[in-house]
């Protein structure tokens, strides 16, 4: 006798889960189910990830030797530009929000779908169309401006497909805005009864903060790219100094979006890690409310630090001081988060499953990347290391070491929920450890090369930097293997993996109270929430070994 029958309720008729509810291609391409759209996004961005990865593989191969020989300078420039454009806008920005955010947000707050399901599907089509335009730019001959599109090079001097690439990025920005609006509306309107703001899982808070940045910052990106296209195509003098324009104007506009965009890429990762660590430490997250305020502070202050990208541009010395100060200040909430994750391990019952390995890896790499940010906030040091490999190493630690590790961590954590299957755990642990070491082998040497003065975007370089490039390229080979491994065992698990129950990790959170994979409407009965998000043990106690009592145990089957 189940609880439901005991309570005098009738059992539900059998119904398919969301994956089996319609199997035709049309049923996928016209779906408005947030879970299916999440899968569509996942497939799309995986393709982009490996395209961007292929481009940088050629670049790293070329950098084995100081004078190249494998690629022409022109091809080299086009490859690193393609890598940056694809990885930033077609992988990192949509990565966690559009896959895990899409899939989990309604499940976590007890909603049947997002607030605007058709807008959600539109956002995916827009991403695909934008990606097609950008990839067209590559196939047609490439774009060589770097991902930053700096003027006047991009508007007046580059002989490559700047228009197509800029148009692609312009379009994908609207996909971001649509997704952001959708998430904000969903979090405001569709929370289940009892799901108060301070009972929201930190992942939801992270997605909320990210969405606000997406909605407020992406329009500025659209404007700056529109102006680039107007000057390049119509000859409108916006940035051309000979006709009264100003090249620096572009940098202000561009970084006004692109610095907050860094937080679009890393806040969701923080959210993922904040779900994984409590689950595998069996602990309430340490300082829940401080974690929330820290994320909001990061999202807010993140809008006012863009000028630290421009310390050597000729910007006023006083503006430099203000941006330097704010850049130090924004490191405070990031530090708070690191301390809280660490403190959450205290008196836990910690098990080291693969998601936990990725999450701990994230904390280590994010800390390293964050500390290197202090060097860049200090004006005299930044002047020396900006536009060198030091900066390359710094932002890869945050965006690849941080965000991509968390992306893989989340993938391993929620894979059983998404597919209903388990994956081979020992392979997954191996990949996680390999990724951590491969990453450090690739990017740690770049700090040294950068401090010694190796500029970024160099096709050929003075031979004294070769040792660091050889180390970096060898590490990249290890990293590539670590990225390819999950593709193999995840595919295997789809067909041969053991069945996952509702809640294989004994996690709290509403998404674990429904079946794996969930039904099309997410929950068979409206969930009700009566507690905080990480109720692994009683208040004021340490972690225990018993699984937490599931929420709504009476109401879902």
């Amino acid at each position, binding site marked *: 006798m189940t609880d439901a029958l005991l309570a005098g309720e009738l059992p539900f008729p059998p119904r398919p889960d969301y994956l089996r509810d319609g199997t035709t291609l049309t049923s996928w391409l016209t779906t408005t189910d947030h879970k299916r759209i999440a899968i569509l996004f996942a497939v799309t961005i995986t393709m982009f990830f490996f395209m961007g990865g292929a481009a940088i593989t050629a670049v790293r191969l070329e950098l084995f030797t100081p004078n190249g020989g494998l690629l022409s*300078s*022109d091809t080299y*420039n086009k490859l690193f530009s393609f890598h940056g454009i694809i990885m930033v806008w077609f992988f990192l920005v949509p990565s966690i929000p559009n896959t895990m955010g899409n899939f989990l947000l309604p499940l976590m707050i007890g909603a049947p779908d997002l607030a605007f399901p058709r807008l959600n599907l539109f956002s995916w089509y827009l991403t695909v169309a934008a990606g097609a335009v950008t990839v067209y730019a590559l196939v047609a001959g490439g774009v*060589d401006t770097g991902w930053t599109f*700096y003027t*006047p*090079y991009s508007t007046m*001097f*580059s002989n490559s497909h700047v228009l197509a690439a800029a148009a692609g990025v312009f379009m994908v920005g609207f996909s971001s805005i649509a997704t952001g609006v959708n998430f904000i509306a969903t979090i405001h309107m569709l929370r289940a009864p009892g799901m108060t703001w301070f009972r929201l899982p930190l992942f939801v808070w992270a997605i909320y903060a990210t969405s606000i940045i997406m909605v407020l910052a992406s329009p500025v990106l659209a404007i700056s790219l529109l102006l680039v296209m107007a000057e390049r195509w119509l000859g409108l003098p916006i940035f051309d*100094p*000979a*006709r*009264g324009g100003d*090249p620096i104007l572009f940098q202000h506009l561009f970084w006004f979006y692109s610095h907050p965009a860094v937080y679009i890429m890393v806040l969701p990762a923080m959210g993922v890690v904040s779900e994984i660590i409590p689950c595998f430490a069996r602990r309430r997250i*340490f300082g829940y409310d*401080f974690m929330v305020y820290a994320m909001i502070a990061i999202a807010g202050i993140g809008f006012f630090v863009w000028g630290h990208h421009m310390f*050597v541009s*000729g910007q006023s*010395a006083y503006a430099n*001081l203000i941006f*330097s100060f704010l850049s*130090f200040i924004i490191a*405070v909430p990031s*530090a*708070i988060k690191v*301390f809280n994750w*660490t403190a959450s*391990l205290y*008196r*836990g*019952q*910690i098990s080291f499953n693969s998601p936990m390995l990725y999450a*701990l890896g994230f*904390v280590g790499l994010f*800390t*390293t990347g964050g500390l*290197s940010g*202090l*060097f860049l*906030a*200090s*004006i*005299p*040091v930044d*002047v*020396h290391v*900006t*536009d*060198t490999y030091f900066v390359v190493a710094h932002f890869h630690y945050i965006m690849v070491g941080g965000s991509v590790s968390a992306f893989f961590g989340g993938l391993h954590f929620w894979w059983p929920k998404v597919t209903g299957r388990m994956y081979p755990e020992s392979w997954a642990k191996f990949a996680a450890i390999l990724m951590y070491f491969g990453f450090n082998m690739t990017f740690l040497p770049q700090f*040294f090369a950068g401090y*010694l*003065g190796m500029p970024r*975007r160099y*096709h050929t370089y003075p031979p*004294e930097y*070769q040792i660091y490039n050889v180390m970096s390229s060898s590490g990249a080979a290890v990293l590539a293997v670590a990225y390819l491994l999950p593709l193999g065992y995840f595919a295997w698990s789809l067909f041969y993996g053991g069945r996952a129950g509702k809640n294989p990790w004994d996690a709290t959170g509403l998404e674990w109270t429904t079946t794996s994979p969930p039904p099309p409407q997410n929950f068979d009965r409206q969930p009700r929430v009566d507690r905080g998000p990480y109720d692994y043990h009683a208040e004021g*106690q*340490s*972690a*225990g070994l018993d699984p937490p009592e599931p929420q709504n145990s009476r109401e879902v089957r």
Partner: protein
Amino acid sequence: MNPIFSLPEATTHAEHVDHIFYGLLVLSGLTMLVVFALIITLAIRYRRGSGAKRGPLPEIVSREFEIGWTMATLFLFAFLFWWAASADLSSLEVPANALEIHVVAKQWMWKTQHPNGAREINALHIPVDKPVRLVMTSQDVIHSFFVPAFRVKQDVVPGREAEIWFQATKTGVFPLLCAEYCGIDHSMMRGRIIVMRQEDYADWLTQQPEGDDLAHVGAKLFVERGCSGCHADASKVHAPKLAGLYGRSVQLSDGRQVKADDRYIRDSILQPKRDITAGYEPVMPSYAGLLDDGEIQSLTAYIRSQTEKAND
């Protein structure tokens, strides 16, 4: 080959930068050590099923810790800001006796010119222990003048003059690199800075081919490009006379006052309608696109020399 951390400190500025760099390195090294040690210790001590003490948590935990480490990081970062910012501010003022050298960046080379007119390409000879001020312009896209051994970097943006200064403390040859991506041969836009003893620099200068100095070139351009048609003393057109102009403050027709420095002269040549001198008609055509950056530098030098002559 450079062993790790053997980048020469070849200017007074480099030593200050490295102090901060090493300070930050020690600080972040310690922080990493603490964070990693904590994670590893806690992870091992509280692994699932271990015998470490669990039970009720001690009373002082969450809020006290949060406020404690928030304030600690805040004060630490405020201190770091103060330290780095004061070093930055103290490096801003250019010594008055600095040797002024003009640099023109273009795809993909550095052209330098000494006060006596000697020119170099992708190379710059300078004397040791003497402040050097670079006045830089770009003819096309943004470039960035980067000398790792000097710890200096400055973007050179088309349409405006960029300035940096440094004082070399070691003789030798140091790489000059372009640090802002500028197109196909960006990575080939490299040169050498040759720091010489002061007397060697003087010898080197005299051995250079007799290049006209900037002011002479400017004087020729002043006639060739038609400037003298209006601005020469004998001209009948009502135009501001340029002798004694440089460094003076100029009354503009809209009531503002500006100082006639390099930037003002450059703007007046390229955008004459912007700052109209009080009492004159806005009749001067723009020379944007007709003069390259080197020529504008020469004209500026000529106008300045007219002032120096008037003062002598």
